[in-house]
């Protein structure tokens, strides 16, 4: 069995009377791309927000390499190697692509006391940023202003920023959303490459992409885990077919 990096045990989140996540168990292993599927409102965003520290769980425990990190905020989780991308593109639109990633890379070695150093000349940070840009397939766009990139490129930049933080766990919230088929194919290739050395949680709507790339799939409905298993198991699960595909049909 491979190394479990991030695990949620009995994770629950309530908003007033509404239970958005109920007793969710999930574990992410290095080398495994774990997809989280579910209709709109199933609690996928709440789940990823709790894993990334954007939202504290009402109950339950979150562990990183066995250590309880439930109480850590998002910046502390980023520090230990949990990175996330956002569903709605969440970049620094007025900065260049390089500066977006440079800021991300700088967080690994922030040196805030070096008040008289030129941040752009701290070689380790800039190199890390350039490497992340290249890995995410944005080489050559370094000087472009992030807000002027195409939608697909902005999604790639989201990933590049996470990579620049050297994250071991990638929590990716719908990285394929709104992408054309070419761009999607590129992103799938990228994800396949990335998972070799990292643990990835992929929240995604696009079923074809999920079945093409995922090693493991967890299906959520109404804030609860309905089924978790290999793509084959999920495809053949009567529960999933009934509950999830039924819901999906309503949406379409």
């Amino acid at each position, binding site marked *: 069995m491979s190394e479990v990096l991030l695990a949620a045990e009995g994770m629950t989140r309530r908003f007033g009377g509404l239970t958005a996540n109920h007793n969710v168990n999930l574990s992410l292993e290095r080398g495994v791309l774990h997809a989280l599927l579910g209709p709109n409102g199933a609690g996928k*965003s709440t789940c990823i*927000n709790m894993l*990334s520290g*954007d939202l504290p769980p009402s109950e339950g425990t979150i562990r990183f390499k066995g250590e309880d990190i439930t109480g850590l*905020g*998002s*910046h*502390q989780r*980023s*520090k230990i190697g949990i*990175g*996330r991308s*956002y*569903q*709605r593109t*969440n*970049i*620094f*639109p*007025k*900065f260049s692509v390089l*500066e977006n990633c*440079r*800021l*991300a890379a*700088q*967080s*690994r070695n*922030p*040196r*805030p*006391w*070096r*008040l*008289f*150093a*030129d*941040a*752009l000349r*701290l070689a380790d*940070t800039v190199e890390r940023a350039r490497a992340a840009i290249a890995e995410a397939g944005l080489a050559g766009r370094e000087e472009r202003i992030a807000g002027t990139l195409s939608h697909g490129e902005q999604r790639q930049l989201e990933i590049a*920023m996470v990579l620049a*933080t050297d994250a071991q766990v990638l929590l990716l919230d719908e990285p394929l959303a709104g992408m054309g088929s070419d761009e999607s194919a590129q992103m799938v290739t990228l994800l396949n490459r990335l998972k070799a050395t990292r643990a990835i949680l992929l929240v995604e709507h696009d079923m074809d992409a999920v079945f093409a790339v995922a090693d493991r799939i967890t299906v959520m409905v109404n804030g609860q885990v309905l089924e978790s298993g290999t793509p084959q198991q999920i495809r053949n699960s009567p529960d999933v077919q009934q509950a999830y595909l039924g819901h999906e049909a309503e949406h379409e």
Partner: protein
Amino acid sequence: MNSRVSTIFKLAVLAAVLAFPVFGSGFYTEMLAKVLILAIFAMSLDLLVGFTGLVSFGHAAYFGVAAYAVALVTPKYDPASLWLALPVSVAAAALVAFVIGLFVLRTKGIYFIMVTLAFAQMAYYVFHDTPLGGGSDGIYLNFKPDAAIAGWAPFDLNEPLHLYYFVAGAMLFVYGLLKLVLRSPFGRVLVGIRSNEHRMLSLGYATFRYKLAAFTLAGALAGLAGFLYAVLFGFVTPEYLSWHKSGDVLLMVILGGMGNLAGAIAGAVALVGLQELFTGMTKHWQLLMGVTIVAAVLFMPGGMTATPARIMARINGGKTNE
């Protein structure tokens, strides 16, 4: 303006500032010294408003605390040593900013504006209501600080020219310091916080600490301005901490264009210029000032620079991703 023209322009302004006392009268030299001090004040606030996205409406507090500090450390019948009074004043302002920052930086957006104002008002009442600094009458600084080191005096602040160049030097120092800080890793994080604090957090930055450091540094530099102001005019009143002063310095930053140090300096020039112009016209000059401000906001949609939109985006969009 391309960068070479901009550099030449800045050097020309610098030359004019340095040459001014040689040609200008004493009155205008003092006024220019006042402008230079207010430019320091405005640059210190711009670090918060323009570069970090923190709209502080209580920045006069740190200016005033340092001004009182120099008055209080000066003995009644002797001058204080400059090398004691200056660091003590700046440190006092920094300390007050640090403590207030611990409270106000827990809030965001409109709360931040109101809470910074309220804390500044609290500082105002400390000096207004208690006998600490002479109450509402204020306190005189009978002697300007003495620059002598072990009996040797490199300059004498009682000499108007020396004082003027001391002020000009301080302003250049602050300009250079902030330029350096803003290109450092620390400064880059501040600009990132203004653009998208939420993302900075998720990238692993403890943004609160950065904001607190920026708030403290801005307080210290406002303190330097307050120190110089007290030394220049020789008295300190609670009005130095009043919310009108906080409003004025915010005006300077905005008039000049936020997120631009040279703009903050230009804003100080513009505000003092407008005040001089209007006071020369009528006793009710504040009316003209008010109308100018209202007209500026109404008829310059989108603000005097593009930056306010970014602040708005931060206030509205920086809280959650949902």
